[in-house]
């Protein structure tokens, strides 16, 4: 398979995943805020901007974060490269360069998602609230997963999609947990540990609220939420689950056996997974959650870079 096609598949999946994740977080936070007092607004909206990695750009345009500003910025802004509309646009551009490779249904699906997203009027949606818009994105992303799974041969190209999807998901989950903790621990006393609305929102945004209750049979406790999102072996949005998928994808492409590795990306993925399997959440908290997650994010970054080095780029030899 052509390197360029592999690269486009990888990014196609990443952009779709980023759009879906952003939509989930936006939607859930908006509705949580409805039941909050005004002085706590900031606690909800600031993390979202930090998470998108676009705080500086946001402050320049809006100053203070509020529901309207965050919604517009994360959903519609052309000058925010991570906005949902931009992600869908870039996903479609990537799909367009490989439309001979992907199935016709996949192309029609991503193309129609693009037209759907662009038919929304930002002004109307901002008046109506983000639910309708975010729902459309989430549904669109799920549908694309389904169409892909059902119509694309599960060969190397499919593996690159899988790797893109799950490395993006691992990173987004790591950022979500990191940012929430960070902000809560910085908050004035009295609203940190006991405040479980925030954590309910986190769980709901990754669709893990019910699963949490099934597993822990307890009230919402930050440590358990973190444990669930970082190391749950089977919840599809946990970091561990995501990295397991990345590992399977990488092995399917290179043919490496368990216990060995063909490139740096596989070595690092294996290393991350070892930790996720054998660390205990109490140990992680002792070491410091922030530095732990930060290290995870750096490793994910290196894995992405090495995938590019191993499969996408050719040194100029002519």
């Amino acid at each position, binding site marked *: *398979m*052509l*390197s*360029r096609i*592999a690269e486009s598949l990888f990014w196609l999946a990443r952009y779709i995943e980023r759009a879906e994740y952003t939509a989930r977080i936006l939607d859930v936070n908006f509705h949580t805020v409805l039941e909050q007092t005004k002085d706590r607004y900031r606690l909800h909206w600031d993390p979202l901007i930090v998470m998108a990695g676009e705080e500086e750009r946001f402050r320049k345009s809006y100053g203070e974060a509020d529901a309207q500003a965050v919604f517009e910025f994360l959903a519609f802004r052309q000058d925010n490269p991570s906005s949902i509309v931009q992600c869908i646009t870039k996903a479609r*551009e990537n799909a*367009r*360069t*490989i*439309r*001979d*490779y992907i199935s*016709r249904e996949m*192309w*029609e699906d991503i*193309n*129609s998602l693009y*037209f759907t997203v662009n038919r929304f009027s930002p002004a109307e949606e901002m008046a109506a609230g983000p639910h309708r818009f975010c729902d459309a994105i989430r549904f669109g992303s799920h549908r694309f997963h389904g169409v892909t799974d059902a119509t694309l041969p599960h060969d*190397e190209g499919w593996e690159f999609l899988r790797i893109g999807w799950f490395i993006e998901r691992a990173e987004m989950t790591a950022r979500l947990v990191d940012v929430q903790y960070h902000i809560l621990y910085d908050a004035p006393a009295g609203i940190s540990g006991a405040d479980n609305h925030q954590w309910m929102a986190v769980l709901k945004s990754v669709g893990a609220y019910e699963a949490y209750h099934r597993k822990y049979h307890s009230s919402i406790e930050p440590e358990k939420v973190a444990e669930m999102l970082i190391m749950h072996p089977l919840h599809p949005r946990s970091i561990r689950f995501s990295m397991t998928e990345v590992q399977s994808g990488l092995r399917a*492409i290179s043919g490496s056996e368990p216990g060995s590795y063909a490139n740096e990306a596989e070595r690092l993925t294996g290393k991350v997974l070892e930790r996720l399997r054998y660390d205990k959440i109490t140990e992680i908290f002792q070491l410091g959650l922030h530095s732990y997650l930060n290290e995870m994010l750096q490793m994910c970054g290196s894995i992405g870079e090495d995938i590019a080095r191993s*499969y*996408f780029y*050719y040194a100029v*030899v*002519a």
Partner: protein
Amino acid sequence: MPLQGLFGDYQVGSFYDEMFAAPDQPRPHYAKIFEKLASMVPSQFEERRQHADLAFLLQGITFTVYSDGRGTERLFPFDLIPRIIPHSEWQRIESGLAQRVVALNLFLQDVYGKQRIFADRKIPRSLVYSCKHFLREVIGIEVPRGIHTHICGIDLIRDSKTGEYCVLEDNVRTPSGISYVLENRLVMMRTFPDAFQAYEVLPVNHYPAELSRILRSLSPRGGDDAQIVLLTPGIYNSAYFEHSFLAQQMGIELVEGRDLIVDGGIVYMKTIHGLQRVDVIYRRVDDDFLDSLTFRPDSVLGVPGLMGAYRAGNVALANAVGNGVADDKAIYAYVPAFIRYYLGEDPILRSVDTYLCSKKEDLNYVLGHLPELVVKAVGESGGYGMLMGPTADRERLEEFGRRVKADPRNYIAQPVLPLSRVPSYDPALGTIAGRHVDLRPYCLYDGEKVTIVPGGLTRVALQQGSLVVNSSQGGGSKDTWVLFGED
């Protein structure tokens, strides 16, 4: 039968109308579709039209128009009323096109080879050598199996009085449009299944398989496992949809210049498991951009060193390099002579009368009759560098006259041809009206026989009174039906 419903205000006019022999009197092969349409309520038709548009939009069968800094995507308008060609009429077209393709191929073999035609004084060497797309770099290259014109799109129009088919233009470089032929048929079958049931229409969908067979046969290494690729300039090219469509239909890789590399005279593509040899390139990149070491040094669309690999016979290109000389508009006037010279036959299809401004008496005639003529720059295509005499204002006529006088070799002129008309739906009027059409059949040549998918692309000038069928100027297309029989 009086005209009614969608045909309410239909005017047959003074042009050759392909559906009507006279007002109220459809030709036999259009009778059934006419009845069907005439019995439809406008809103029913409109509903089907919207279904068809949506199908094209969802598949991204659009072309991009750049304005206000943002590209907007437009549909290539599709008209739901098919153009119908009876079988006997098609057989004549088919044999005429085949004859022409073979002659053009022999001409290209000759001018880039032994050059007998100059020695026999059938065409001046200076005329050929001064063609914009004649490439001296190609002289002496032996192309695989002697084929230069693997894919030709030859434009036909119909005489406004007799309805006779004439050749307007030969496109033997990288003609596009076949994807619309195939997609139009699919959408048409989905939106108007009942119309097909009334006719026996010849299928068109064997084109990709036939093209793939020909490409495979060119592989310098032989065998069935030839690596074939389609080279595209990329997603910003207006024909990108077609490139990806054909690659997918043929099951070959769609590559851009940056995916390929030449090393030691061999072309490779960059895959996730290392370099892989490429045998045949169906290239949709123009000659000038193919190889920055041989042609335009600023090109990033091609592959540096490609011509070296081609010359060494390590890779086959389709179409061959240098074909542009054969569809030069000045050379066009000589194609009937090529048919007589190379094949010893009379041309089956007529050409349009052409004045070569490089000839003194023709130049004088052209300058004296500009308002009646169409003047075209010889090396251009797609409606660029053209003067439409009857509709041009005085200033434009004078300006063009000066241009022709300054560089007569660069221009030819032809009488204005009122193209034939086919009934087409006008969404603004909500009724059916006569609109001008041309026809581009696609010819595939494997060195022995010419295969033409029945019909081709019917382009239609959707604006009232317009003769310009180009998509950039409000043109659209129709599904073209060649019938199994006569009606």
